[in-house]
């Protein structure tokens, strides 16, 4: 290999883009040629200089604008889904089928919630914030969500809070609160809703028990492999009178 060859391969060599054999040939030449060593050193120094220039980080106002755009596009998509569902209902033309479709939507949501629960356990991504202190968990969600989920510790009722994370259920960001009962994990997924307040409904998906209620503009979904009676107890404890 000659100095001209090194000259030609100077950039891919310093960028580590040369095939192993060519790189070895360049290295061999460098061992014997101070001038080429100098060239390589200059290229590396130039790279360090460029990398020393500070990174331009996205300003917070840009983040906020983009979060707004994403929310808007999600709600437009929800509107389309709704319009499609409404058209279907009209074509069937009966109030009964409307009620059924609401029921179906809820059971589809129960499946999505169970999926989120299983995902959190399988992917070993149960926590973004691990703390038994509600005063640590609640502020953690600030700035990560555009709503503030109610966070209560239920240690005194036998369901200690163990942490929280962000999750995604059918297209929106939700707060996931994680509680523990002995070896069982309970995920509570919370997000804002315009649905009216409702009492607790129970369902079962693939062997997991699910409880759902709406309270103060928030939709709550509790899911666990805990037995039915204890999950009911948990749901009651989470809804103080």
């Amino acid at each position, binding site marked *: 290999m000659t100095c001209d060859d090194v000259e030609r391969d100077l950039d891919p060599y310093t960028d580590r883009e040369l095939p192993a054999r060519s790189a070895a040939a360049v290295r061999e030449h460098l061992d014997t040629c101070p001038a080429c060593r100098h060239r390589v050193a200059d290229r590396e120094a130039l790279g360090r200089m460029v990398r020393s*220039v*500070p990174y331009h980080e*996205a300003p917070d*106002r840009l983040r906020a*604008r*983009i979060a707004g755009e994403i929310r808007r596009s999600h709600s437009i998509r929800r509107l389309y889904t709704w319009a499609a569902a409404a058209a279907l209902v009209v074509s069937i033309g009966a109030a009964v089928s409307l009620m059924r479709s609401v029921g179906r939507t809820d059971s589809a949501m129960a499946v999505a919630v169970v999926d989120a629960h299983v995902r959190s356990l399988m992917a070993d991504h149960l926590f973004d914030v691990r703390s038994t202190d509600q005063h640590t968990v609640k502020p953690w969600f600030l700035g990560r969500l555009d709503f503030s989920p109610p966070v209560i510790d239920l240690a005194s009722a036998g369901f200690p809070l163990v942490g929280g994370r962000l999750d995604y259920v059918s297209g929106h*960001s939700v707060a996931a609160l994680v509680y523990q009962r002995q070896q069982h994990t309970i995920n509570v997924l919370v997000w804002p809703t315009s649905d009216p307040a409702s009492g607790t409904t129970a369902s079962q998906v693939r062997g997991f028990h699910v409880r759902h209620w709406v309270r103060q503009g928030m939709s709550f979904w509790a899911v666990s492999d805990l037995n039915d009676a204890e999950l009911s107890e948990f749901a009651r404890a989470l809804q103080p009178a």
Partner: protein
Amino acid sequence: MPSRPFEETVLPHLDAAFNYARWLTRNDADAEDVVQDACVRAVRFFSSLRDGDARAWLFAIVRNTWYSRLSRRSRAEVMPLDQTAEEPADRGLDPEARLLQQRDVGRVRDALDRLPIDFREVLVLREIEGMSYKEIAAVVRVPIGTVMSRLARARDRLAAVLELAVPVERLP
């Protein structure tokens, strides 16, 4: 359709997208507008991402957004350069070294800003984003050989501006 939602796939690259846009546009206001428009497009075309490299995909959209804006504008229009802000220098250095470092960083940035856009962007993608030639080729939509030759010429120019040694026969 990617298996994970937009917020998890694309948004982690927001800082990188802004940094790239900032180097393309050379001012904050344009960079913010370009990244916002690019994200709106990205949401719309999210299903086309598959499970590929989200960063390179987002960068390509940022780049297209900027070029379509540029072509709408008069090419002759002079882009205002932001006032160079004080650089946060390494606090571990003594005052003199800190001054030197600030001056050097400012000099390198000015030199980069004065490079032609084709040269500037490959340097930023390679040195600051650490992209491979293949990734850069995907963002800039040129063959890998072109990426290589642009990088070589960009570095020669930059070294010349910064008055570093450059092989004489390669001076542009």
